[in-house]
């Protein structure tokens, strides 16, 4: 027999990694309290699974030092399809300035801006061979194999590797000012940390200047634990001038459809196509607050003609934006398409228990 006092032990206590993450976030807030911080999206388990699956291909790529945007998309993510024209919009010479800190230099290797998102591959090179550069969420107690394909066969922790090789561990982070970034990274054999960053980034400028906040700081031991030495933090703003290749196509549907099982009405669907991705926006309104509350929230999935979900695209998800209490916009990225469809099939799901709601077909019109 159990009673409610036992309940507090059901999940255990917050582990060190969780506690450190909270303290690190609070430190960032303290340091950047007057400006919007560049947020980082953590490397997910999905990505980790994919790395294991593509290890052999990735190792070849890493050893030949050719990790570019398209390599990251094909080698580090699952089912991401871009059009053949994508290689033509990759900008290999990117005008940039402001890239040096005492600990590392930050140089953009490649970039793509397709009018909806930016994709950037950036080299972070240590200013001393004694420095071991780590990504924003890498911790000294993490397994060394997390650092990338070159390290996949090594054993032990990052801290153990650093100690054995007389390296000073450096935390680094890169984010696009004002944008919610998705980040992937790997450490190459010569000590270069290669970042792949993508973020929703609109605008009509043909040559927008994108600012990246680049930070490096050492790990130190404090009270027997590794911690980031915020007093030694070095940062720089890297300004890069990108070429906006723009989206090629756009279709919309403004005929609404009610998903009565979950209490919402889809008001408008917009698809924008580029060589990199198909960007979707679904504007919906809650028309039955009780049913919507019962659903615990919904998300939409685009289906192909056989009822299978269309795979995700290269861009970051974007998530749901709240317009007001009843109006929302769900933004997502689907795989790139040669031609945007004349109709789309949209199914609603509950994200808490994966309940399927109705499916509606929408006729799309060229814009």
């Amino acid at each position, binding site marked *: *027999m*159990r*009673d*409610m006092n*036992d*309940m*507090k*032990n*059901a*999940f*255990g*206590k*917050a*582990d060190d*990694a*969780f*506690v450190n*993450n*909270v*303290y690190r*976030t*609070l430190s960032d*807030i*303290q340091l950047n*309290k007057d400006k*919007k*911080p560049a*947020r*980082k*999206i*953590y*490397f*997910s*388990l*999905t990505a980790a699974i994919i790395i294991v699956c593509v290890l052999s291909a990735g190792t070849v790529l890493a050893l030949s030092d050719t990790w570019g945007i398209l390599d990251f998309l094909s080698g580090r993510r*699952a089912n991401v399809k871009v059009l053949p024209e994508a290689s033509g919009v990759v900008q290999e010479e990117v005008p940039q300035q402001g890239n040096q800190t005492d600990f590392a230099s930050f140089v953009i290797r490649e970039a793509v801006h397709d009018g909806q998102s930016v994709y950037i591959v950036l080299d972070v090179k240590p200013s001393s061979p004694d420095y071991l550069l780590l990504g924003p*969420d890498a911790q000294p107690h993490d397994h060394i194999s997390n650092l990338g394909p070159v390290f996949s066969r090594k054993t032990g922790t990052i801290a153990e590797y650093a100690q054995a090789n007389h390296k000073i561990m450096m935390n680094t982070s890169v984010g696009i000012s004002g944008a919610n970034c998705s980040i992937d990274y790997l450490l190459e054999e010569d000590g270069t940390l290669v970042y792949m960053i993508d973020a929703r980034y609109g605008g009509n400028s043909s040559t927008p200047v994108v600012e990246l906040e680049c930070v490096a700081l050492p790990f130190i031991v404090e009270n027997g634990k590794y911690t980031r030495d915020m007093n030694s933090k070095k940062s720089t703003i890297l300004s890069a001038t990108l070429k906006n290749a723009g989206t090629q196509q756009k279709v919309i549907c403004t005929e609404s459809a009610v998903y009565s099982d979950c209490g919402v009405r889809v008001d408008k669907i917009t698809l924008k196509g580029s060589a990199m991705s198909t960007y979707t926006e679904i504007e919906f309104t809650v028309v039955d607050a*009780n049913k919507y*509350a*019962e659903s*615990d*929230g919904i*998300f939409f*999935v685009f289906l192909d003609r056989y009822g299978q*979900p269309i795979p*995700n695209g290269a861009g970051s*998800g974007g*998530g*749901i934006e709240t317009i007001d209490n009843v109006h929302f916009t769900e933004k*997502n990225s689907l795989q790139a398409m040669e031609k945007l469809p004349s109709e789309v099939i949209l199914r609603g*799901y509950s*994200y*808490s*228990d*994966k309940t399927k709601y109705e499916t509606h077909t929408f006729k799309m019109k060229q814009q």
Partner: protein
Amino acid sequence: MTSDKFSTQIVAMMQTLYRVSYAQLSQSCDRDEAVQECLYKAWQKRHQLKDEQYMQTWVIRILINECHNIQRKRCKELPLDELPERVTPADADSELHDALFSLEEKLRLPIVLHYIEGFSISEIARILRCPKGTVKSRMRRGRQALKIILNGEDQLLCEI
């Protein structure tokens, strides 16, 4: 609110942030992401909090939203029936842990918020943005299910 006061209050909520994110997300990287986003948003929107005595329920609401955003992303990244399984932490009561995770999330969350975090029915209704009656019925169904799973008497008393 100063950043020092904000930090102090967040640190005091450390275990609550952990348990609420744990109740919804199986992967530690996802919980880290959810909490980080939650804290940035709470700090950026702190002026919208009219009365600081509601800070805890307000932050928890933001955290639940962030957890839901990540659930949405994961649902799209992985086939719906292949979401990763949860590993019980070493210091957790595995029987209660497994019993709670055999409940649907919509039943589990009110139970966690009430019995573990000590929120009232009214506060839970505000956090989950649903009527008090819905909270009560979900808690009742959750308790009944737990009673069957744990094969004991229903001792999970609450104010309803």
